[in-house]
């Protein structure tokens, strides 16, 4: 086998891809008049780095490839940004994005296994994705495979007990083929995580449970790509990336306004948002 040199796109071009995904996500949510803009936007760099930054080893033409890397969006309500990434990767037509949340659409309001290729787990009931990721990683080990499993969680989601059961299990299994990324945007549904049920100190918690913990600015594309490749290379224990993010990132009136946790932008708001997310040349 010849050593394939992954040609990673430049940070600038990845940033433009993230803007494209954000525009898709907001258009979809606005069209459906329903969905979760805030948490879709905060994950945009993470998802972009995975799918377009040379991190995730996957082949949209062969979505069932047993050797593919797995991506699980445990915070399933952020799925618009994932659908956008899957469509832009070629898993299904970009036009289909606008059917989000409609009757008879494949694009369900939360990810559903078996609907569109590229979705690896049914999520939406928060707290379950990391356990599922452990299952994939263990299956990979049993089969002698090299694939890596990435799981994105919300910070509010980390209040669920099951997250900490999984957090305890993964280092015990020495699962270095598993990476958790916490989209730490500081808000959940009813308000600020800090006010409702603080997770602090989250870095120390994961470290105490036996994880290799990295802390990054989740909107610094270079840092996101670097952390993900470091996580993939790390041996002996799973890696948890605490990605500090801004809920609603990229749209001034959505940033840190938790009104947009689960509210669609109206037509005018969408226009303003799209103009703020225009490609930069």
């Amino acid at each position: 086998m010849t050593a394939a040199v992954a040609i990673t796109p430049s940070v600038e071009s990845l940033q433009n891809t993230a803007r494209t995904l954000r525009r898709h996500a907001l258009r979809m949510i606005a069209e459906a008049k329903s969905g979760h803009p805030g948490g879709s936007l905060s994950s945009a760099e993470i998802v972009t780095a995975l799918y377009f930054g040379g991190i995730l080893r996957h082949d949209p033409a062969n979505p069932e490839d047993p050797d593919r890397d797995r991506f699980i969006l445990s915070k399933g309500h952020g799925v618009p940004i994932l659908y956008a990434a899957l469509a832009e990767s070629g898993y299904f037509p970009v036009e289909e994005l606008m059917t989000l949340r409609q009757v008879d659409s494949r694009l369900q309001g939360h990810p559903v296994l078996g609907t569109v290729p590229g979705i690896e787990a049914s999520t939406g009931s928060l707290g379950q994705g990391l356990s599922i990721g452990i299952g994939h990683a263990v299956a990979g080990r049993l089969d002698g495979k090299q694939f890596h499993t990435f799981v994105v969680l919300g910070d509010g989601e980390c209040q669920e007990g099951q997250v900490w059961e999984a957090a305890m299990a993964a280092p015990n299994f020495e699962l270095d083929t598993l990476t958790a990324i916490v989209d730490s945007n500081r808000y959940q549904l009813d308000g600020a995580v800090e006010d409702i049920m603080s997770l602090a100190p989250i870095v120390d918690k994961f470290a105490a449970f036996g994880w290799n913990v990295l802390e990054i600015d989740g909107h610094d594309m270079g840092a996101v790509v670097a952390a993900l490749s470091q996580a993939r290379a790390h041996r002996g224990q799973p890696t948890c990336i605490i990605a500090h993010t801004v809920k609603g990132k990229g749209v001034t009136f959505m940033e840190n306004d938790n009104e947009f946790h689960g509210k669609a932008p109206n037509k005018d708001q969408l226009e303003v948002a799209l103009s703020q997310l225009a490609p930069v040349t």
Partner: protein
Amino acid sequence: MTDTQRGSPTARAPRTELPLGRATREAYGDALLELGKANKDIVAIDADLAKSTFSWTFGKQFPERFFNIGIQEANMVGMATGLASSGKIPFISSFASFVLGKGFDQLRMGAAYPHLGIKVIGSHGGISLGEDGVSQQSVEDVALACALPGFIVCIPADEHAMKKAVHAAAAHRGPVYLRLGRPKAHVLYKPDVEFEFGRAIQLRDGKDVTIVANGLLVAQAVMAADVLADKGIEARVLDMHTVKPIDRDALEEASQITGAFVVAEEHLHYGGLGSAVALALAEGTPAPIEFVDLGDRYAESGKPEALMLKYAMTADAIVSAAERVVDRK
């Protein structure tokens, strides 16, 4: 008339004017606030859905007796067990799918087995939750709650019945499950409606068939009864808000008079109101039954009305079922 014509939503306008009122979840918040003012032992917990379940109506008034515990449904139920054991009356709310799904063992060990007075509030019941899709659509909650010994399981149909149910839940000593709905509900009752757990409310008298329904489907049942009347079929309509304990007397009388049933509910086929009615009738005076429910499957994302239509939980579906069951007599 063919079945496809029957299935058409615009085939006819319902005769009974049932104005759209508030969602039953809104009424829940108001009633909880009233309770809180009257009784300082009322405590509420929510799991990061306080603005959706309307427990926040209570929470903002009584911050010291309200706990938003975060996304921790199992912990919420366990905490309620301790509160109830120490003399409090905990009302714990989330989406129905999460409080029952994630809190089931805790409810079994901490509410049902010790028969503690925990009031379990499952909001956004059924597929009329809509666009969020299956992960949030609770269609098994009635089966799960009915499985728990000693639980009262109740799905009020409108805002007024809901308020009465919340007060009744607080007054009842044991565990109670109340399902709330997301969409606005048709108003069926006056604010002073007589409401008692385990006692069905008869909304229409009839001798040919009995429609037993709860939740949002009670309004559909009333509309269906009007359509059936035009076809010469007189339907009795029972709002069976309490699935457990079921009103055996009302069912027995209806069986003897009408000899045929349609059960309509926003739930899976197994373990809900349909199962409860079938059990009660089998133990009394059996009669043929047709079921209007989700069947043995999950639904999908979509607008609430579109889903109710696609998954055939409408007045038209009840009309067709009534005609079928009358033929079976």
